[in-house]
């Protein structure tokens, strides 16, 4: 099983490698897809899995939604589609972490401090990516929140929310009161944070933000890899987290927009001049 996971991870690496030049790019994408199929097939053989019906239903629903929306989307709407797919990935991490925490909480699964740490990290990063991607999608589709939306003390609000999430996380980690409520609150705060982080950013910088959130989701996936002691999740997650970060920097420099200016756009102390 671990060997097949290694093989899948190898295919991911080779796939990304082939994506570096236009001639081999399509075969690279296919290689990565084969790797994914191997990893998923092997996972289904895991003896911990008992309920196949639910899996079948879930995968069927997800496949139909994913395939139909991917085929129907016009070429011009590609960035928001990537944002949507990235968002659901981040959301999946958060829901996995919430489910695992509940299992540990009711004593069905043994879990130590490290597990709770990875649960909290997964919820925090995954939810920020989920909510942030949703806002990116909404902005690019020009449904609402177009342009840069700011409000006074935005930076303070963001920092305050992050601080609250960290405190609640420490509470859950140290075995303080109401651990289940704390973890759910971390989830809600992280969702709000994801919204607040992306609303000030204008539509032109959105692809860069999506790339950054893509790296976030990768990192979040690696966190669930630690939580579930699953090698392929750790490898693929770290791979995407790292390559996504580099890609974000490449994109922002090729567009001539420094990264920190985009992320803190409009949030700075000085009001925009124009």
């Amino acid at each position, binding site marked *: 099983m671990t060997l097949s996971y290694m093989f899948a991870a190898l295919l991911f690496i080779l796939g990304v490698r082939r994506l570096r030049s236009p001639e081999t790019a399509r075969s690279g994408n296919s290689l990565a897809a084969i790797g994914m199929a191997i990893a998923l097939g092997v996972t289904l053989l895991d003896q911990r899995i008992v309920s196949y019906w639910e899996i079948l239903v879930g995968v069927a629903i997800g496949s139909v939604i994913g395939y139909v929306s991917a085929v129907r989307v016009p070429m011009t709407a590609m960035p928001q589609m990537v944002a949507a797919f990235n968002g659901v990935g981040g959301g999946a991490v958060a829901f*996995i972490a919430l489910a695992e925490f509940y299992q540990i909480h009711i004593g069905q699964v043994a879990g130590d401090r490290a597990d709770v740490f990875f649960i909290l990290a997964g919820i925090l990063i995954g939810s920020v990516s989920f909510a942030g991607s949703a806002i990116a999608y909404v902005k690019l589709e020009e449904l609402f929140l177009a342009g840069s939306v700011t409000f006074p003390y935005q930076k303070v609000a963001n920092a305050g929310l992050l601080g609250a999430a960290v405190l609640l996380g420490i509470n859950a980690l140290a075995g303080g009161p109401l651990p289940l409520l704390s973890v759910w609150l971390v989830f809600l705060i992280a969702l709000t944070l994801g919204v607040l982080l992306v609303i000030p950013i204008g539509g032109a910088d959105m692809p860069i933000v999506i790339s950054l959130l893509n790296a976030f989701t990768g990192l979040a996936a690696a966190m669930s890899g630690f939580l579930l002691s699953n090698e392929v999740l750790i490898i693929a997650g770290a791979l995407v987290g790292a390559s996504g970060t580099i890609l974000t920097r490449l994109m922002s420099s090729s567009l001539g927009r420094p990264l920190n200016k985009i992320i803190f756009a409009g949030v700075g102390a000085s009001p925009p001049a124009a």
Partner: protein
Amino acid sequence: MDQQLLLEIIIFVLAAVIGFELISRVPSLLHTPLMSATNAIHGIILVGALLVLGASESLLTTVLGMIAVIFATINVVGGFVVTNRMLEMFKREPQKKRRVRRVRRRV
């Protein structure tokens, strides 16, 4: 720190180094497809979602696991299909150019 976690951290760091090394000097034409492909690859979270839903014994974890499986499947399927469509689009142009060059050489 237990041995298992230590090994996992080593795997994480090595994979991250590979990730950093892989994406260097990529033509900007390929930035968006690369983003889309790595987006599909983190759909690997479906592995985790399957494990959680498959082993679930309570209603809450079944619901959460089900949402996670649906979300992650959308990520995987949609991610790869969209990447393929993107690559299909700009694949045709270079081929045409090449053919033109070949013809010119013959002339």
